[in-house]
Every structure is written in C-alpha cells, then in structure tokens.
C-alpha cells in the first residue's frame, strides 16, 4: 500500500474551509485512487502524529494549514514544520510536501528541499487569499479546486512539474470562465501568481497501489421492469475494464443476476424486478467494489 498524509486542522474560519475542501478534494480522491490516507484532522493535526505516521512511510504530505515564512502550524497553532527543526527534517526527508500554507514558499519549503532532502515541495510565497459566502460551497470552491487539482494530478501519476502546472492551468480556467464572479478573480490571480514549486520536476509518487475500479450504475425503468447498466473503468487511467464480474443480489429474495463487462466496460442487465439489491464487482488485480441499489432509483 502507498500511504499519504492529510493535514487538516479546524479551529477557526479559514481552517474550517480548508478542513472541508481538503477532505473532499484530497482525502476522497486519494482513497478512490487506491492510496491509504492517514487523516491527521482537527486535534490530530500535530507534529507528534506526523512523526508516528513515518512508520507507514507516507510518500506525500499535503493539507491546508496556516504558515509563515519559516513555519507551518497545525491544530490551535501548534508546530508542524519549522526551518532548522530536527523533527521537520526527519518528517520531510524523501517525501513530497504540498501545502496550502501562506508565505512558507519563501523560506520553509525551499529549505525542506535544499537542506532536508524533501523530493518536492509546493506552496505559496505570499498570503493565500480566498472569498467565502455560505459554508462550505459557492465562491470558495474555485480557490480550493485550483490548489487541489495539482495534487489530484500528482496522485493520478503525473510528474511533479506537470501536476503543479495543472494547479496553474486550473486557476487560469476559472479566471477565463465568464460564469465565475468577477469579484473573486483578483484573488484567484494573486494566488496563482504566488504558487511556487521546488524540487525534482520529474518526480512521481512511487509505491505499489492496489488498483481501483470506478463503477457507475445507471438504473432505468422499462414498463414494470428495471434495467441496470454497469460501467466499470480504471479509476486512474479511465480505461474501460473488460471482464469485470458483476453479481447483483436481491436483498430479501433468493434472486441473483450475474455477468461480465464487455470491451467497453459495460454490462446491461434487463428485466430485473424493481427492488432493493446489493452488488459486487470483481476483477483480478483490482480492489473489490460493492454497492447498493434502491427501488426509487429506477427512473
């Protein structure tokens, strides 16, 4: 398994947003891609817990934390990383550190790479600014999506430099989007311009990951019967998986439907009773996928 660390304290307004978006855009994505996420959230966002996490040899440390030129802090402003700190050296050596933390891009992040042996580091060399209205969505979203787009690309196998460029191009995409409020665009541009990257541009997140199949289930009602359409793709490459074995079991009756996906990763099961079902999808080399179907979802 390949482990990654998520740092997401939550103790005031900025970290409250960071905690939410980091969970949604980093933790969930990493899990979907087959990584094991060590979630150091809220009171667990401490340096002690980072040191304990080293036992699992995480490849990437990422999160949303307050920072300064030479420090990044966790829950309630407790120390996570500091220039000159021996524990910081131990934690970052041989790893990637990608943090949404203001000002750390000036001194702390380059120090991690140049003096501590971090493989890559990404962050911001000035204050990160974002806009909010109602928690947690709406106008805050483009800021966090832009930042985490690069991390998602890194998790998906892109090189560090290419992944960083995905963050920049996502900021640009929002800046060019007429649907995005003009009022937030100065701050998007500012954040984009102060994003910085250090380290080996060709580095990738290494390690063996269990491959994960992404299963989409479409349910249709055809007169009094139901049709279930499964689509199974590799979550990393999005290439359809042929020969994935699907089993659909009625929740209360001894009724079962089985089949394998075709070259397009599809399996259509027609004429099923409109009812509640469990399903499993299995393919050698992939993590088993499971799910539920409810009668009201047949439309």
């Amino acid at each position, binding site marked *: 398994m390949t482990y990654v660390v998520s740092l997401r304290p939550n103790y*005031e*307004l*900025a*970290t409250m*947003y960071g905690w939410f978006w980091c969970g949604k855009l980093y933790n969930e994505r990493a899990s979907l891609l087959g990584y094991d996420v060590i979630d150091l959230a809220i009171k667990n966002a401490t340096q002690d817990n980072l040191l304990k996490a080293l036992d699992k040899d995480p490849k990437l440390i990422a999160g949303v934390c*307050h*920072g*300064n*030129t030479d420090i990044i802090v966790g829950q309630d*402003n407790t120390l996570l990383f500091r220039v000159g700190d021996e524990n910081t050296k131990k934690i970052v050596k041989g790893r990637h550190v990608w943090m949404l*933390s*203001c*000002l750390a891009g000036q001194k702390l992040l380059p120090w991690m790479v140049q003096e501590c042996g971090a493989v890559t580091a990404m962050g911001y060399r000035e*204050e*990160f*600014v*974002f*806009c*909010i*209205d*109602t928690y947690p969505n709406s*106008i805050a979203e483009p800021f966090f999506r832009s930042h985490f787009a690069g991390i998602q690309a890194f998790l998906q196998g892109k090189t560090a430099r290419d992944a960083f460029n995905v963050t920049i191009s996502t900021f640009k995409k929002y800046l060019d989007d007429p649907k995005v409020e*003009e*009022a937030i*665009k*100065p*701050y998007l*541009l*500012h954040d984009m*311009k102060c994003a910085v990257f250090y380290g080996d541009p060709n580095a990738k997140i290494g390690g063996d990951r269990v491959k994960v199949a992404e299963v989409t289930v479409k349910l249709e009602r055809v007169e009094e019967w139901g049709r279930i359409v499964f689509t199974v793709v590799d979550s990393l490459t999005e290439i359809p998986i042929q020969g994935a074995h699907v089993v659909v079991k009625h929740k209360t009756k001894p009724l079962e439907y089985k089949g394998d996906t075709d070259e397009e990763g599809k399996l259509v099961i027609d004429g099923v009773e409109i009812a509640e079902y469990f399903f499993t999808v299995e393919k050698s080399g992939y993590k088993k996928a499971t799910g539920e179907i409810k009668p009201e979802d047949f439309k």
Partner: protein
Amino acid sequence: MGFGIMARVEVSAEEAIRWFEEVYKEEIALGDRSLKRIVFMTAEGAKVYTPAQLLEEMRKGTPIGLKNIEIIREYLKWKREREVVQK
C-alpha cells in the same frame, strides 16, 4: 503566427478602489449583513473582512488595505494587458 507588442498598462490606487466599490456595490451597501467575506491567510492567522470593512481599510491605507489595492491593481493590469494583446 503573429507578432505582438507587450502592452504596459498602469492602474492607480484610486482606480483599484473604484473598481472594488463598483464590483462589491451591493455587498458594501449591506455592511455587516453581507454574507460575502474576503479571507487573508496571513502569518498571524486568518483575517476576515466584509467588503465594506475592506473598503474602509483600503481608504485608510492600512497594510491589509494596501495589500488589497495591490491585488486589484495587478488583476486590472493583467486583464487590460490581455485585452490589448487580443485586439
């Protein structure tokens, strides 16, 4: 393939403040009742402002007000330079 001349565009602080007043007109009128906030993640932690408060900071020329003016000036310059190049 075309040739372009890099356009140099200057934006004054007053212009940046006027842009902010115009774009945030409704929120400024709402004062503290505006749901919109601008969050600066600074070395001292998060600094959170309503548009009305931030306008006041800009007018007073406080450090955060000046920072906001600079961010808007950069944006307006960037936007106009792009418009000139695209024409």
